[in-house]
């Protein structure tokens, strides 16, 4: 490292970036001044029911002009519903909306657009086979013939994209663009319509950390231009990083609105969940026993012949959690699938308690692996973990549907299946505990708990678990982490693949870092730090250097 770098390398200031000097004060000033002025948005007593679900309960909310306002809450807390009401996508049963202090009727998105409100939805509202320009124009075409307004729009687009640093090719087909760029198109669409209020619903869910930083820069720029930004998220880190004020929602109601500068992640998490939350699970030192899983020089190639897993050797012992860290797409998925019997292997071997279970061209099937006591929580619950159109009770026996416990002499036994599911739901706190509900009707966290329950309750000797808390809210994360630690303490071997660094650091007793299909380093829990693992994940530092 060069000596002329002026930044002090104090690790403690890491969270807020190196400059927490004058710029931080500037950031905060406008919001404090504007708290006195008329808020850009004021919601009064917004109430909304969907059938039996009370999605919003008498919500009052004020959002100051030219500020970035965060709305956080668990999945299903009603934050998206509230913003969709503001956007006219849904209509409130009761309540008033005031824009710049004037009561405004917003029954349709067109009225919201007219009132200067734009929204970037969680699922992008873009037409994939349209060009950027066509998407921009949709709904704002002006005259009957589109040619004239298209030429106009092209000019406006280059002006706006230059102004906000949102560069895109107006003639690119949107479906071919990466998600980060598609999101820019969404923002441009809103700016093009002259919006003063911009609502973003979970905008970072689809972005890489770098793209997220880019987005935050754009949001700050928008604020500097006097726009009001509302950011819906469940990632507390982001709230702390970019917002001026934050509103916490719980069960459809506002649990509190705070100045970001006066709060912290722990306080927000507790407001979200309504009780104390352990952000980091308490655990004792592991007492590893015999090796359970031994992988020797394993290589797995994909359909095109590229090695996705290359020459990997590792072992998981009884009573320990081995964490596999790495940026998604560096071979972790292929590794865990090979271990579960879902992929053919091209070289090396896999042994379970000393017994060979996979050699090239002699792999055991997933069913065989299950019978040997290896259960698998797949990375993508909707693709591989459960079938969203099935009842929860049916999803709860997937993979074990042939088990005598669920079958009569000829037909499957519905009663037993439902009872089994009710039992799992009770043990794993799946809410609502309704075995007859469609699997897809549960929130992400509850789906994940159901899949975990199914696999953990089989009492495996080895649990393979991929991304156990992806898209899962804070309360459920805590629960899932505790169950994994309990399993470990009961002497089971656990192999954990996660892209969340915090999760790896919180759970794993040993950490292996994968980069481009290879293991680039191994650390014990004591040695592991975000910085060390982060560098290994980027492929910068190899083992021992």
């Amino acid at each position, binding site marked *: 490292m060069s000596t002329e770098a002026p930044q002090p390398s104090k690790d403690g200031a890491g969270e807020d970036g190196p400059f927490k000097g004058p710029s931080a004060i500037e950031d905060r000033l406008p919001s404090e001044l504007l708290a006195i002025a008329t808020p850009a948005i004021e919601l009064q007593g917004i109430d909304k029911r969907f059938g039996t679900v009370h999605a919003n309960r008498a919500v009052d909310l004020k959002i100051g002009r030219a500020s970035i306002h965060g709305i956080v809450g668990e999945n299903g807390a009603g934050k998206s519903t509230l913003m969709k009401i503001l956007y006219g996508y849904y209509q409130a049963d009761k309540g008033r909306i005031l824009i710049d202090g004037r009561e405004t009727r917003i029954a349709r*998105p*067109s009225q919201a657009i007219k009132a200067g409100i734009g929204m970037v939805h969680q*699922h992008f*509202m873009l037409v994939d086979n349209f060009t950027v320009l*066509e998407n921009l124009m949709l709904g704002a075409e002006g005259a009957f013939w589109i040619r004239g307004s298209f030429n106009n729009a092209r000019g406006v687009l280059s002006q706006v994209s230059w102004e906000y640093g949102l560069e895109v090719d107006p003639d690119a087909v949107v479906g071919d663009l990466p998600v980060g760029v598609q999101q820019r198109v969404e923002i441009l669409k809103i700016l093009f319509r002259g919006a003063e209020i911009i609502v973003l619903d979970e905008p970072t869910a689809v972005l890489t950390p770098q793209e997220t930083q880019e987005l935050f820069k754009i949001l700050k720029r928008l604020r500097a231009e006097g726009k009001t930004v509302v950011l819906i998220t469940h990632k507390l880190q982001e709230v702390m990083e970019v917002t001026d004020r934050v509103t916490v929602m719980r069960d459809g109601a506002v649990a509190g609105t705070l100045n970001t500068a006066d709060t912290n992640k722990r306080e927000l998490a507790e407001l979200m969940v309504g009780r104390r939350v352990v952000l980091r699970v308490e655990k004792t030192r592991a007492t590893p026993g015999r090796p359970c899983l031994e992988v020797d020089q394993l290589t797995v190639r994909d359909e095109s012949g590229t090695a996705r897993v290359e020459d990997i050797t590792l072992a998981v012992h009884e009573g320990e959690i081995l964490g596999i860290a790495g940026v998604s797409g560096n071979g972790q998925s292929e590794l865990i699938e090979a271990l579960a019997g879902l992929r053919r292997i091209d070289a090396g071997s896999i042994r379970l308690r000393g017994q060979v279970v996979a050699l090239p061209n002699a792999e055991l099937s997933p069913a065989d692996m299950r019978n040997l006591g290896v259960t698998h929580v797949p990375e993508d619950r909707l693709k591989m973990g459960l079938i969203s159109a099935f009842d929860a009770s049916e999803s709860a026996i997937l993979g074990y549907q042939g088990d005598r416990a669920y079958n009569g002499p000829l037909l499957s036994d519905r009663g037993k299946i439902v009872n089994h599911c009710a039992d799992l739901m009770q043990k794993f706190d799946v809410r609502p505990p309704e075995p007859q509900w469609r699997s897809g009707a549960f929130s992400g966290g509850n789906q994940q708990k159901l899949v975990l329950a199914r696999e953990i309750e089989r009492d495996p000797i080895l649990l393979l678990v991929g991304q156990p808390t992806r898209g899962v809210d804070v309360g459920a994360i805590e629960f899932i982490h505790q169950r994994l630690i309990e399993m470990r303490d009961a002497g089971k071997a656990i192999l954990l693949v996660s892209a969340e660094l915090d999760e790896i650091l919180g759970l794993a007793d040993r950490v292996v870092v994968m980069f481009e299909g290879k293991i680039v380093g191994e650390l014990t829990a004591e040695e592991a730090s975000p910085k060390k693992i982060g560098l290994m994940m980027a492929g910068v530092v190899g083992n021992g250097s």
Partner: protein
Amino acid sequence: MAEALIFVLLMIDATIRVAAPLVLAAFAGMVAERSGVIDIGLEGKMLAGAFAAATAAAMTGSAWLGLIAAILVSIAFAMLHAYACVTHNGNQVVSGMAINILVAGLGPTLAIAWFGLAGQTPNLEGPARFAGFALPGADVLEALPLAGPLYKEVISGHNILVYLTVALIPVVAVLIYKTRFGLRLRAVGENPHAVDTAGISVAQLRYLAMAVNGALCGIAGAYLSTAAAAGFVRDMSAGKGYLALAAMIFGKWKPVPTVLACLLFAFADALQIRLQGVAIPGIGEIPVQAIQALPYILTVVLLAGFVGKAVAPKSSGIPYVKDR
């Protein structure tokens, strides 16, 4: 030599006559599916239009009033389809099929009730039909080599609905690609959520598309009973609605390729008529049934093998429900 030329020209002429209602129906299907509504009821709406046109023409003696009646009746059925599929999120294939079955029975039944004929309408004559007419100068120019006969046999001599169809081709293409309505139409069939959040009513747009669809089917129906034939006959659409659907898929939901596909199918049909009873050297006379099957065999072969990847508008067939 001259005989061969005349044969070719007559074939082209016949192709155009057969293609006209196909193009109208295929465009109707295209507008519907571009808006996200699958329309398997083209056949039924054409037949309803044919019956309405023949009935109105028989009663009033005016082919033009027949055309207007056909358009109105066909639009009414299109609105019924839209009511079931757009307003009530019904199954679009079932609704379309229901229209086909309903009309197939209703037409002949009403014909019996009103005219006492065996499921037909009275024979149309004079101004109650759209007859072919010669374009100016057809006889004068005939003497010119090639261009003369081409003008006389192929371009001149059709009925007004053929010329209307030819005029509608660029009109529909421009409507879809160059206008606000077209942009929204293309968008709503791909991603209605994007349209809704852009502040445009999805239902309104789909109803509008179905109105256009009904009008086009109505013209196609009037063509069948008051231009191509002289009255309504039971099942006179004879699968043309389905053929039009196939042409639309073969044309990948795009105007010009769809027209070309219609011409191809129409050519097969014209050829089929020509080949009936003709002994082919080396093979002999082919049974009529086998020859009549030609256009349909062609359809199956083309759709199975030569279309390549036909990508339908992504949301066609899926009722629009706000949440996802």
